[in-house]
Structures are given as C-alpha cells and as structure tokens.
C-alpha cells in the first residue's frame, strides 16, 4: 500500500480514538463548568437584583449597545421573573457600562429593580461620581425618565447613564413577551 496513505490512516485512527475520548470527557465536565460559570454570573447579578441566585439563568447575546441579556426564570414554572440588562453608552471620554435589573409589578408595568455602573473611565472627581450615585430610578417605571436625577456638573457622564435606561426601556416589553412565549 502507498506509504502516504498509511501515514494518513495512522493519524486518522489516532484522531478518531482521541476525538471519542475528548468528547466523552467533555460531556462529563461541560455541565459542571457551565454550572460554575452561571454561579459566578449570578453572584455578580445579585448586586442589582436581590436573590438572583435562586433562579435559573439564561444568557442571550444582545444587539448594538445592549451587550447581554440575562433572563432569570423560576426554576419550576420557567416563568420569567426578572431580566437583567448589560448595557453600554458613550460618556464624556469613555464607555460607561451598566447592569440594570427590570421586573414586572402587580399592575403589569416594568419597573427598575436595581442598577449599577459596572465600569467607566470618566474624569476622576467629576464624571466618575456616577458610580454608586442615586439617580432616583429605583422602583420607577422604566419608561418614566422624568424622575431621573443627573449628577450636577457631569452632564455627559449622566447622559450616558440616561441613555442606558432609555435603551432598556425601548426593548423591555418585547423581551418579557418574547421570553414567555
């Protein structure tokens, strides 16, 4: 038989055996890895939505400035309890990233359950005040930005935060509807 064919076949056999072995080990470890990763995400999500770790997590990649959408579903009924958005917007000199948690209240309105500025590189002492600042949005209906309270003297940085809320407001109804169907 041709020598080249033999070397090819030897590699083929080794490849087959190793492939089976790898796929087998992967099928054992992949769920554990996924669970660990979910736990870490849920822990950090817990900062904007209390009790996040009690729910089942589904991660969906977002579009445009909405980076990721985390659905928190009830473990048994699979009903969407809350959605946490990871959004970003351009600030004065950097990109501001935020986590915003939304849940539905008893009168079927979408309210802000919590929010947090995750990362920013705004001017220190002025723009970076947006971290931990109370924008008066907690428990407000997401589409109602009338109560939004900007940081005095940091217009651009505050606008970035405002844009984040607006982005979420635009799509939240569709996301809740979409997740349930």
């Amino acid at each position, binding site marked *: 038989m041709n020598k080249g064919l033999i070397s090819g076949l030897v590699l083929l056999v080794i490849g087959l055996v*190793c*492939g089976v072995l*790898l796929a087998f080990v*992967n099928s054992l470890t*992949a769920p554990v890895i996924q669970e660990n990763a979910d736990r870490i995400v849920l822990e950090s999500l817990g900062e904007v939505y209390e009790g996040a770790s009690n729910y089942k997590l589904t991660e969906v990649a977002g579009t445009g400035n909405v980076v990721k959408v985390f659905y928190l579903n009830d473990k048994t009924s699979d009903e969407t309890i809350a959605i946490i958005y990871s959004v970003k917007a351009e600030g004065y000199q950097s990109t501001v990233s935020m986590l915003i948690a939304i849940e539905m209240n008893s009168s079927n309105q979408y309210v802000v359950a919590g929010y947090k500025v995750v990362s920013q590189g705004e001017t220190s002492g002025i723009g970076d005040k947006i971290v931990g600042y109370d924008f008066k949005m907690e428990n407000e209906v997401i589409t109602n930005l009338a109560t939004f309270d900007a940081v005095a003297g940091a217009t651009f940085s505050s606008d970035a935060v405002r844009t984040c809320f607006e982005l979420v407001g635009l799509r939240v109804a569709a996301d809740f509807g979409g997740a349930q169907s």
Partner: protein
Amino acid sequence: MSVSALISLAFTAMIIENVILTQFLGICPFIGVSKKRSSAVGMGVAVVAVILLAGIITWTLYHYVLSPLKMEYMQTIVFILVIAALVQMVELIIKKMSPTLYKALGIYLPLITTNCAVLGVALLNIRKDFGFAEMIVYSLFIPLGFLLVITIFSMLREKIEMSPVPKAFKGTPIALVVAAILAMIFSRFGGLI
C-alpha cells in the same frame, strides 16, 4: 474597534506585555538561540512570520469551523496539529524553492514547534475574544516584541561572552540575570499608557 485603540493594543502587545519579559512565552529559544546576533535576528524574523500565519489560520478555523460545530474544547489539539504541520510544510517548501531564504529563515523553523509563543498567541487570540483586526494587530506586534527583545539580548550576550563572569554564573545563569535586568527596564514602560 477604533484606530487609536488598535495602536494602543499594538504598543501594549509589543512593549508593555512583552511576550518574553512579562508573559514568559518562548523562553527556551530566547535563552538558547541568543548567543549570536545573526542567529537571534533570523530566529526573531521566523517567529514573526510563523506567529502571524498561525494566528490568522487558527483564528479562522476557530470561528468558522470549531465554533459552529460546538467543538471549542478541542482548540488546543487542533491548533497544535495545524501549526506543527504548517511549519513543517513551509520548511520543506522553502528548502526546495529558495536555498537563500532557507539559510536565512528556514533553518529556524523546526524550533518553532517547541516555541510556546506560537501556540500561546493562537490561544490568547481566542481567550481575549479578539475580532479580526485586533487579532491581526496582536499576532503581528507580539512577535515583533519578541524580535526586539531577542535582538537586544543577543547584543548584550555577545559583550558578556568577553567579560570576566564568576565561574558559577557562566552560560545560562548570567543570561537569566541579564534577562531580569531587561525585565526590570521593560516593566517601567507600563506607565506610558
């Protein structure tokens, strides 16, 4: 990604996160093939060519074959196979096509399969979630950093060869001490960005 971000990535890849001095990839050829300046430069250029080529191929393979098939976990084995085969083929082809190019560059190719910088950059491209443009910049400037440092290092070693070094430090130990001093210098560049 904007142009300015790409430029800062290039600078970071080449100087601040220098492969050898801060990431410790490719130490073996760094210590081994730096005794003569000519061979150090030849090695460096070969590394640039191979890392760029391997980076492009493995990135494409990952995003268009492995990822759609949900076989991300097999990246290590596929990457090393492709790189090893690629390098061997390039070596054979150069040897036949252009003996001059083989003398200058080709003879350094066998060392590259055991150079962890090649596989390292291919894996880092994936781990850092790079897009195409970022991947190209990273895979070009990381080995350029290698070329820069190995050239400086080989010049220093040529001088050390002629200096009175304590007997116990002759060879690899003094080379490592010199590398430590170089690392100290390069660590200061971090303040520039």
